[in-house]
């Protein structure tokens, strides 16, 4: 579910200088050709470290992310919602399972990763730390947090590391259920009683700021990010992901008659490759 706002700071790129230049060139040529790197292949230390960190953060976010929605499993209204939410939260645990497996192929045991999570040594997506006060908060997550995660995960699925891409292919297939389920829940709240509409509007007000932070801070393109993008570890900037999410989902939220708590968000016309598209402008320096 939650693939957002990975942090890559803290590891120096200097280590590349000590790598075998021939092997490094072969490695980069393989990625350039669009081929996947497999566990048994040679890879630079920096690549291995950054991937472990990224996949591990992603896995932790899934596991912790099962909790805020899990809070509503015992209270889901009606059979249909009850079974759907159980299956949805189960998928998040399943995603964690798949992602830890992918990270394990790089040499870090699951044991150690879970240890680092419990000890607070590893990071994970901050959005999963927010509480869900009502059923509508749970619906917001199912629809929109998952939508944000899909933007990230679809990009990452085109990355260079085979086991991570295969895990993401599986995960993205399940995310389509989450997205449709979440949207279904919100349509029912939107078209329901005034109380139901109010519940979702309040959830939207609570969740919009963490949703924007989910994609991470605006990127400062450094030599470090440049290398990670060349190696197809990082597949797009945080702002690109955030804008893609806004372009796709702000119109859908407005369509349902809800107000997004950001007065700077407005409809703009932007010229893209000759076609005029309706896009959403967002001032992130605010």
């Amino acid at each position, binding site marked *: 579910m939650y693939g957002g706002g990975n942090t890559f700071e803290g590891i120096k790129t200097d280590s590349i200088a000590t790598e075998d230049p021939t092997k490094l060139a072969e490695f980069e040529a393989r990625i350039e050709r669009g*081929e996947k790197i497999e566990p*048994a292949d040679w890879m630079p230390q920096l690549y291995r470290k950054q991937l472990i960190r990224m996949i591990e953060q992603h896995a932790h976010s899934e596991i912790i992310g099962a909790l805020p929605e899990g809070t509503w499993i*015992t209270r889901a209204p009606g059979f249909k919602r009850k079974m759907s939410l159980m299956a949805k939260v189960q998928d998040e645990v399943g995603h964690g399972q798949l992602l830890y497996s992918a990270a394990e192929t790089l040499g870090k045991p699951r044991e150690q990763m879970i240890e680092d999570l419990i000890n607070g040594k590893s990071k994970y997506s901050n959005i999963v730390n927010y509480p869900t*006060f009502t059923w509508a908060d749970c619906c917001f997550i199912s629809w929109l947090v998952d939508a944000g995660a899909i933007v990230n995960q679809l990009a990452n699925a085109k990355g260079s590391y085979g086991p991570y891409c295969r895990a993401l292919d599986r995960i993205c297939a399940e995310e389509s259920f989450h997205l449709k389920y979440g949207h*279904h829940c919100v349509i029912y709240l*939107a*078209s329901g009683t005034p109380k139901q509409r109010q519940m979702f509007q309040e959830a939207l007000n609570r969740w919009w700021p963490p949703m924007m932070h989910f994609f991470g801070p605006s990127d400062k393109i450094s030599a470090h990010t440049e290398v990670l993008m060349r190696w197809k570890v990082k597949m797009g900037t945080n702002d690109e992901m955030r804008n893609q999410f806004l372009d796709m989902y702000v119109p859908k939220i407005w369509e349902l008659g809800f107000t997004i708590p950001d007065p700077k968000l407005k409809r703009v016309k932007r010229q893209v490759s000759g076609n005029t598209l309706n896009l959403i402008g967002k001032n992130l320096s605010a």
Partner: protein
Amino acid sequence: MLNSLDPRVNRLPQINQSISPKAPLDQFGTFEVFVQPKEGKSFQHEGIVHAPNLELAYVLAKEAFTRRFTCVSLYVVDTREVFVSPMTEGNNNAYDLIPESTTSTPGNQSFEIYHLAKRGKQHVHVGTVAANNPEEAMVHAREKLNTGKIVFNVWAIATEAIRFTSEEDKELWLTLPEKKFRDASDYKGGDKLKNFLERTKINH
């Protein structure tokens, strides 16, 4: 008493003593999972599960890997039982890197052979050979199962090490196609949305 927004958390048993560090190896060992999506199709490697033994690996793999889509059979094997050839790329066939066997006897143990036909994809079961050990199984597989098409990696697993699905176990997946609530297609909100949009248009 805990005071969480999650009623389930408030019901958890009280922990009186301070939490001690968890025992090592509580994640157990790993087992490789292979799934057959349809009758007549080959088994394909899908991933791993952590489990305390082979039988539990089978039980846990079933829901971890086959709770969606179609499945008619599944099997698992301890990761340590998978014998792996070198990995190749480009036009190099993994079979070309397998050392010649010293003996040429056919052998009396059965081995399952798997090929990686495309880098980035999963290993697929291609056949069974008889051999005395996994090294020889690879050599026999080169004679029997190497079609000349590039294979990037070969796996050999002793058949007896595998926990297969029995004929009776096949009914485990009987109701899988009915679990529509796990599928995006079960959440059609289009009509409800259309009605809502029409209603709000009239009101405004």
